[in-house]
């Protein structure tokens, strides 16, 4: 069954993407984070949060305190599994939201390859222009990677 799972909650989702890697706990485990609808992929190193992985790759989106207190950086977890290594207040991320696959990106650590969708009205901004100098989105069907930034285009 495909789905998103976070702290023991499993949801059924449309079969749009597949995960090819199982949860691994090792330090060298590097889950991929796919940001929809752009399709950009970044790699999360070790116990890096979703926010940290995107920031390291030069990608910006709507965030607030970056410390789990305000909930501004919530995204939709479309596929995959995350865990929270630090306590998250119920007032910031409710149980219902967790069940719905809402993910607090500044605190969520991917434990499988994941796909996330930014909030309505938000968009991905590239701080490091040289990562994708000629387009707002990676060209379809073309595979490339940039080891300097950790970003790579989605492989179709």
């Amino acid at each position, binding site marked *: 069954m495909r789905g998103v799972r976070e702290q023991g909650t499993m949801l059924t989702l449309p079969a749009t993407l597949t995960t090819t890697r199982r949860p691994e706990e090792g330090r060298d485990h590097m889950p991929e984070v796919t940001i929809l609808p752009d399709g950009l992929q970044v790699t999360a190193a070790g116990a890096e949060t979703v926010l940290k992985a995107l920031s390291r790759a030069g990608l910006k989106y*709507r965030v*607030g*305190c*970056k*410390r*789990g*207190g*305000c909930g*501004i950086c919530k995204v939709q977890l479309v596929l995959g599994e995350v865990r929270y290594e*630090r*306590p*998250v*207040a*119920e*007032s*910031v991320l409710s149980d219902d939201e967790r069940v719905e696959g809402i993910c607090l990106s500044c605190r969520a650590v991917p434990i499988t390859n994941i796909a996330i969708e930014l909030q309505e009205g938000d968009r991905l901004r590239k701080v490091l222009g040289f990562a994708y100098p000629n387009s707002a989105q990676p060209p379809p069907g073309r595979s490339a990677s940039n080891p300097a930034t950790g970003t790579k285009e989605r492989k179709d």
Partner: protein
Amino acid sequence: MGVMRLGYVHLRVTDLEEARDHYSNTLGMEVVHEEPGKLHLKCWDEWDHHSLVLEEGGVGLVKVGYKCSSEDDLVDYEKRSSAFGATTGRFSRGENLTVGDGVRITLPSEHTVELYTDMEFSGTETGSINPEAWPRNMRGVGTHWIDHCLIAAEDPGLIERFFQECLDFRTAEKVVETMEHPEVIGTWMTAPESHAAHDLAVIKGPNAKLHHFAYHLDDWNAILRAADIFSMDDVPIDIGPTRHGITRGETVYFFDPSGNRNEVFAGLEHRVQKDFPTINWTADQLGKGIFYHDRELNERFTTVFT
């Protein structure tokens, strides 16, 4: 007679040990009392027992305490607050560590404000006889004292009126829609016995929420040095170092490990005296009023509350 200052902030944090490290080592406060799930701290330049209570579990404000001159103040304020329509009650000595009897008020904005006259006196690090300028064992930023807090309210005009009519606060500066239609968007208020540019601020936002509370620092150099320390300690900076148009203060906004916003604040603020007028800012100049150099608000200013 009346309210003298913001005496304590009682705050929720998600992880007490991370919070201890932030407030004690990064900001330089002293832990003066600890019990399971709770820490009491003070700054080196504060006279009373504590100014910050950290309680583990959740984020945001539990309550704030304003220190008053006399018991008569408490009686008077309680009566006026009740007549205004706010929920009031009494708390007893010992309910708050080392704090005497007091009045607890639930504001129309759902914040809890406590008024008290007595807290155990413990003295500053430098004392009251021939004091040195600062203590040699100062840690981190070395904040002087907790200066003010900014809370959110769906109707900031109502909260301004409450503090004016019930607690004798003066409006030092305010942001209004326009001068012709002066609906209050934000207000910066000074307590009747205070010498600060403001002891409380209120801006339009969700009830019961905290925008930030602030520590006083010496000057612009201290603000810069604080920002350096935040980078060293990986503390997320919201904005700064910069200057506010409103109050004219110099500032850095930053976040504690639970996401509660803090501020370090310094500079030559506008003087507030009984015979001086309120300084008005209009909504079209709000960006300049809040962040004098950027002249535009960042999205976080109006969306990030705890």
